[in-house]
């Protein structure tokens, strides 16, 4: 085991400060913006890797300051170093992509500054060993989220505003939870030993308050609505950076911390049940919304929400395999979702649109992008042997293990599996809409994106494959299991990724052979007729968006979709509406009541004034009379 030397302190400061400092220098020195950003993120990756390697299977904690009795502490364990490493990997890949994709975009000059600020904040959250220090970094991310969402289109302000409100409100709620723990326990450091039991109203309320913060950051229902809203206006790299990767990592990281490092979630079935219900609802509702979307980024954003459901469901089971599955799904999701956003962003970069009905047939023009997209789409859909399958498989097993505690496990399992099926259906539609079918003529000159944009996407696609085939050997053995040392993980059933991969490859090869020697060599072109009229190619083009119109048109679902599109399930609208109602009550009833009281009081004073003004006759004898009367009363009083 490597001895922890003083260089670790230095490296921790580096990963905290380098991203934001380099972002700031890049902002100030325009000519060196890309160089500074790149330098900062590469160095951050380097130092994160060093921390990862130097602190294997060790915990490291030290106090950076003690203010007002609060011990601001850094804490590094296996979970920290793994999230820290992936923070910097995603940041670096996305920066590489955005150097080209963000050129000449509105707000370009501050983009890398916000990237740096976000990465520093995210690293700070992960490195905090004290909840109040964590809150400070967490709060810093509100600023950077708001700022980065303003970059892109000029209409993005509404999305930024929505994100600010939802995340800001959840931060305040979380602040209260942290304070309750601080006051109850006497300090805010973690891990807490022994773990806090969820058996008093105060601690349960603290857990729920913290949970709100975690779920809002991860984007679980009902706190998810800022993500689809942002997807409409934010650049692909922004969507990939925050809602798809860093926020998911942080939200789920925090959920794991509070559930198994501060509280003992395993001992509270009602809370676990609540988490699982949230997870199941998130999976189904979000994927149902994704299914009928006609715009690529919005569709992906609903999937970014839906997949959180698996993580919450897995962690909520309280079963070791489920918890590990949830954590594994977090990292898998970040990999394939970033890949999907970047691929869709590449399509947008070349075609200037993300409307699915305007796209199609781009596979031959952008083969690498298509390859990456398909790999990531299969991964998110849980197709073996990709990484998404393995983590979902672990979550399923966790749910099945739950059968000893509750009969509801069947419902959760159905929700999870059904969600996976719908995800696949949704991505088949998207793959067709983007890459297959007839290509609109205007895209004839479209070509593959440049090296700087395709490289990060390719790396992520390859990671989807590697983390699936070598799931046990690399991510689980080196990242996930060491992060959960308190769990005894016993897989059930049998799964050999290597064997499955070989079988799948054989199947694909047979399919190719059948295709080549069957239909491919004998194409039979035919014209498309409607009522005897030959349709031109463009009119006859079968676009993807309407694949599932029949689902949309089912009576009950149609109404539900309509309500959904109108914002009936949007927490943000309810928050504003309900608090707005209270605002009116406070302003027009309570305030007015006091104003009325004052007016009545002032009216009485004025009336008294008018009555006494009668005595002001303006005649001297009258005043002399009053003086004498007053003197007599005074004398009488003194005599008494």
């Amino acid at each position: 085991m490597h001895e922890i030397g003083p260089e670790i302190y230095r490296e921790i400061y580096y990963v905290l400060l380098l991203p934001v400092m380099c972002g700031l220098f890049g902002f100030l020195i325009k000519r060196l913006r890309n160089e500074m950003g790149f330098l900062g993120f590469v160095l951050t990756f380097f130092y994160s890797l060093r921390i990862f390697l130097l602190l294997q299977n060790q915990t490291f904690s030290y106090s950076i300051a003690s203010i007002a009795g609060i011990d601001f502490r850094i804490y590094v364990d296996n979970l920290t170093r793994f999230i820290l490493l992936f923070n910097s990997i995603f940041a670096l890949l996305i920066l590489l992509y955005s150097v080209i994709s963000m050129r000449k975009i509105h707000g370009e000059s501050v983009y890398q500054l916000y990237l740096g600020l976000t990465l520093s904040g995210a690293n700070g959250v992960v490195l905090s060993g004290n909840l109040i220090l964590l809150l400070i970094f967490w709060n810093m991310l509100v600023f950077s989220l708001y700022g980065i969402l303003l970059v892109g289109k000029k209409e993005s302000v509404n999305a930024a505003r929505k994100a600010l409100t939802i995340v800001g409100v959840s931060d305040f709620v979380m602040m209260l939870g942290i304070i309750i723990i601080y006051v109850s326990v006497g300090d805010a450091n973690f891990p807490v030993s022994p773990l806090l039991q969820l058996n008093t109203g105060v601690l349960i309320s603290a857990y729920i308050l913290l949970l709100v913060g975690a779920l809002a950051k991860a984007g679980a229902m009902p706190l998810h609505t800022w993500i689809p809203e942002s997807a409409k206006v934010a650049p692909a790299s922004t969507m990939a950076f925050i809602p798809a990767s860093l926020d998911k990592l942080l939200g789920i990281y925090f959920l794991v911390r509070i559930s198994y490092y501060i509280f003992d979630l395993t001992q509270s079935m009602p809370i676990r049940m609540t988490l699982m219900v949230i997870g199941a609802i998130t999976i189904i509702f979000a994927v149902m919304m994704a299914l009928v979307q006609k715009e690529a980024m919005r569709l992906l954003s609903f999937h970014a929400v839906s997949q959180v459901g698996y993580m919450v469901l897995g962690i909520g089971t309280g079963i070791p395999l489920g918890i590990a599955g949830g954590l594994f799904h977090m990292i898998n999701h970040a990999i394939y979702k970033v890949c999907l956003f970047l691929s869709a962003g590449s399509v947008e970069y070349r075609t200037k649109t993300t409307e699915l009905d305007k796209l199609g047939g781009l596979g031959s023009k952008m083969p690498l992008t298509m390859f990456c997209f398909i790999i990531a789409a299969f991964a998110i859909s849980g197709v073996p042997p990709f990484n998404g399958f393995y983590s979902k498989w672990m979550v399923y097993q966790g749910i099945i293990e739950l059968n000893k505690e509750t009969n509801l496990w069947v419902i959760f399992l159905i929700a999870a599996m059904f969600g996976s099926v719908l995800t696949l259906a949704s991505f088949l539609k998207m793959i067709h809409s983007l890459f297959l079918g007839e290509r609109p003529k205007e895209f004839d000159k479209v070509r593959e994106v440049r090296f700087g944009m395709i490289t990060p996407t390719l790396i992520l696609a390859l990671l989807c494959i590697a983390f699936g085939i070598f799931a046990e050997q690399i991510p689980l053995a080196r990242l996930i299991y060491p992060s959960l040392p308190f769990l005894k993980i016993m897989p059930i059933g049998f799964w050999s990724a290597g064997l499955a991969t070989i079988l799948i490859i054989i199947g694909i090869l047979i399919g190719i052979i059948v295709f080549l020697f069957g239909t491919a060599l004998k194409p039979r072109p035919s014209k498309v007729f409607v009522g005897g009229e030959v349709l031109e190619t463009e009119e006859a083009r079968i676009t993807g968006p309407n694949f599932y119109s029949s689902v949309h048109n089912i009576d009950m679902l149609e109404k539900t979709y309509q309500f959904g599109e109108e914002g009936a399930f949007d927490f943000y609208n309810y928050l504003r509406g309900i608090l707005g109602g209270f605002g009116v009550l406070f302003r027009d009833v309570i305030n007015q009541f006091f104003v009325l009281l004052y007016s009545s009081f002032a009216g009485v004073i004025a009336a008294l004034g008018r009555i006494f003004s009668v005595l002001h006759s303006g005649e001297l004898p009258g005043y002399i009379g009053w003086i004498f009367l007053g003197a007599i009363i005074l004398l009488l009083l003194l005599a008494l």
Partner: protein
Amino acid sequence: MSLNSIMDFGFVIDRYGIFLTATFVFIGFMSFIYALATITHKGHRLEYYISLVLIILSGIGVALSRNLLFIFICWEIATFAVWRAVVFYRKPDQVSSGNVVFITNFVTAGIMLIGIGILYLQNGTFIITEIEKIDITAITLITIGIFAKSVILPVHFWLIPAYASIPSAIGGVLAGIAENLGLVLFFRLFSNNSNLPPDFCNIVAWIAVVSSLIAGGSAYRTNRLRYLLAYSTISQIAFILLGFSVGDFFGTSGAMLYILAHALAKSGLFYGVGTIEDVTGEANIKNISCMLRISPVLTVNMALLFSSIVGFFPMIGFFSKLMVVIGAVQKNIYFGFVAIASAIFTLLYSDRFYHELFYGEHCDIVDLKTARKPGVVESGVVFILALLSLILGILFYEILGYIGGL
């Protein structure tokens, strides 16, 4: 009961007094700079200077005095100065607002004087540190005066017409100094005082936190710029009172820090709003939009100031709010819930006003091409206050070290 004991107008120069004095003087100085650009008429300037100096002096007097009678004198000077400031331009609606200000403050100050008198009769002294016998009637009467001066429900209503009428330059001083007088007196007289009846501070804390919530909600649903500032001030000042009433280290130090945070941010917002009114000639948010295009600098500065009011890191408002809520939860967990609800209202109204003012969807309602750009002095003052809110947020532990004696 010799005349000497009554006329012992000595001062107490402790870290709190110095901190408050420095804050008040700085806010006054900023007002002075802002007034150089906005109050140009000679006669008006004279009256402005008189009001400014009186408010600053009364603030310093209350912050440093140990004698209740002297504090009362400063209190009344402040009432007079604020009243003159509200009727500054002698317009009929200003005179009407001035009447509300004067009657409310004067009547409640009279009530407070009775309370001070009772304390004097029981203790034989006006010196705060020598008061040991605390009568519930006396402290109730004094608290009414404190509530009125520091705009706590139910005697808060005078601030709304006052803010609507007062010139922006003095408005910043009203927000940053005059309304803190009640808080300072509460702190000196009651905070961490073991002689108080057991439930007194709890009741005050409840009134404060509910006041903060109600004012926050009202701010969210108002459309007039200055009404927003008024309700926001009521809400924030009540938050500070919550800190003082729950006492202990976090409550008291947090409230002190909050006084600074609020004074900087609210006076900055007042000057910012004044600048917007000057530029657009409008006072209703429905008639103002897209200020970003007129002044990006003001947009950024106002964002920082609103962030400080809301309590976002790294603004100084974050730490003050955090500490007050810690203090509140230590006392009673329910205070924490209501305080956070109030903080959420603060976020909502700040978000609404900021975005509707600086972004908005109807950029045609203001003639952007002909609109006057804010002057350098006006923007500069707002910039300094915003920058200080940021820098002091980053260096909050230095201030905390000073006021908390750490």
